[in-house]
């Protein structure tokens, strides 16, 4: 176990939600919200505190698409590929994002941990299709060109 890992945040989350097996999903969500992913160090710690095996926590964490075991970028870009966004050409936007950032279907985060690009099935904003979100801020009616522009702006904020 990484001895330098600070468990204060994790302790705080567990105190809030209760140190019980039934709270595991909420606890993982809390941890992910803070770190933007699930650091490996928390698994043995949670296992000991909550009394469920590390393998079971891993099972829960890998079952849900939303949990990430790898660090995510400062900007998490979600591109909607639901039906409405798809027919209004979300794929060229996705391709542009990946091309500009040097990412692919398997490599979703840039090496400098600046950007993460994910697809989601529907953001519930079909009237604004095609939609992308950056750290939950919505950008409606996107095009590949607008996307490149947005990326340029974001890169300056890194």
């Amino acid at each position, binding site marked *: 176990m990484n001895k330098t890992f600070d468990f204060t945040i994790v302790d705080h989350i567990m105190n809030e939600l209760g140190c019980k097996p039934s709270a595991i999903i909420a606890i993982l969500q809390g941890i992910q919200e803070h770190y933007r992913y699930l650091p*490996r160090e928390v*698994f043995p710690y949670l296992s000991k505190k909550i009394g*469920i*095996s*590390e*393998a*079971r*926590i*891993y*099972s829960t964490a*890998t*079952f849900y698409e939303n949990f990430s*075991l790898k660090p995510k970028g400062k900007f998490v870009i979600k591109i909607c590929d639901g039906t409405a966004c798809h027919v209004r050409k979300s794929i060229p936007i996705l391709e542009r994002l990946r091309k500009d950032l040097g990412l692919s279907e398997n490599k979703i985060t840039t090496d400098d941990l600046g950007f993460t690009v994910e697809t989601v099935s529907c953001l519930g904003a079909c009237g604004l299709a095609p939609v992308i979100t950056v750290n939950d801020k919505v950008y409606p009616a996107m095009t590949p060109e607008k996307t490149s522009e947005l990326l340029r702006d974001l890169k300056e904020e890194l």
Partner: protein
Amino acid sequence: MDKKDFMTIDGVPVEIDGEKNLLEVIRKVGIKMPTFCYHSELSIYGACRMCMVENEWGGIDAACSTIPKAGMNIKTNTQRLRKYRKNILELLLANHCRDCTTCNNNGKCKLQDLAMRFDIKDVRFPNTASQPEIDDSSLCITRDANKCILCGDCVRMCNEIQNVGAIDFAHRGSKMTISTAFEIPIAESPCVGCGQCAAVCPTGAIVVKNDAQKVWEALDDMNTKVTVQIAPAVRVGLGKKLELDAEGNAIGLIVAALRRMGFDEIYDTSAGADLTVLEEGNEFIKRLDKNSNLPLFTSCCPAWVQYCEKNYPELLPNVSTCRSPMEMLASIVKDQSNSSSRRHVHVAIMPCTAKKYEAARDEFKVNGVPNVDYVITTQELIQMIREAGIIFTELEPEAVDMPFGTITGAGVIFGVTGGVTEAVLRRLSTDKSKASLMSIAYQGVRGMKGVKETTVMYGDKEVKIAVVSGLKNVSDLIERMKSGEHYDFIEVMACPGGCISGAGQPFAQKDIRENRGNGLYAADKLCNIKCSEENPIMMSLYNGILKGRVHDLLHVNYLPGKEHE
């Protein structure tokens, strides 16, 4: 008289008598349903859908997870059900690595068996599975995910019965696998090598490591002396696999077979068990007198020792410093041949997979060479006997070699839960009359229950004893201990029912396991020496090879960096 409830199965009326699911009722009318994920001692999972039955309205239920009710009318074998079952098998086989003839589980595989039963001649679907790597990091088991059908039996065994939690499902949908946390090799996980996952695995996805080939090589080498010891539980584990009628004591036949195979000297691990009884008895008396490090946990079971190391390191000072019977006997056998220039290989035949790990521990090596060179399980013994072409039932029983051929009843019952305790109680008992020794059997130490408790008097002291098998029961007991309950002596066996249910034995349901236990108690009755201290070899050992070396040869320190008392 209570009103009886009836239901109808394939037109046959049958009484419902408290069965917890339809499967059990169906079994009563002489039908064996196909199942993968059902084990009577594990929780019900209902995933494989092989046990589906059709109800009178044409609906389909899984028999394993349906509670029998009065008036139910079901069919177990219709055109529709057969079609579904075949489809399921075909889909399972599609993603299965179908190298049956070279599979470790060939002939013991449920998938193979059911494919045969349902006459699967063709698999229409292509294999789309990725080809995961084989995990052979453990000394006890090998995991091959290519052969996994995701029935989850291993997961439930590891979690519910053993409370080890080394493996679980990971990922979802078509990517789902059985995995350790972060897919680390099983040897680095909390796994303790009990092998119960392999025992319940219906296919070859988890199998026990096979060391038979190495033993053959040693036997073939003319310049090597090969000695072997046979654990108590092995003699009652062969059963039907070698066409024996029952789970009786087959030690004589095993000895005869081993001699034919070319083993030079054949010993009985029960003699090692006698040493354990004496040493552990002394240790217990010392600790009782000093009232220190109580309760004393037994240390015969290597899976338990590893479980303690990994989960309760603070309890290690309470674990007996005695080596296991296998290691005690091995250190003496090896020490005796130290002066000889001839290479000496010592083999142990065990009901256990964790013994393979124990044998390789650094604590049990002398100059880097393990005292037990190879551990083979009962199943590997059966395979070797078959490989040699020996017709087991035509053998004449033979005797174990001296000096470790004289055994006691106390040593033999080590193979069943409660046996170690009973043997130690015989040692502590001041009244060695037959009646008194027999009465120990009725003090609550026998039987297949997972937790047995009893109190006996030692001098004027009340001694509280617990006998536990199944690691979940152990961790529950430890929790009770932590909340204040006191025990003086705790016998722990990792496998439910003790070594007779070890993962190295052919897999057995509860009734057969009970028969095996009874087989050992019957063997005890046949021994004219009941107590370990009365074994004449013990005297000569303590006056000979063990003089001044008891600590070196019979004890072990599991506490890293600390001197044991």
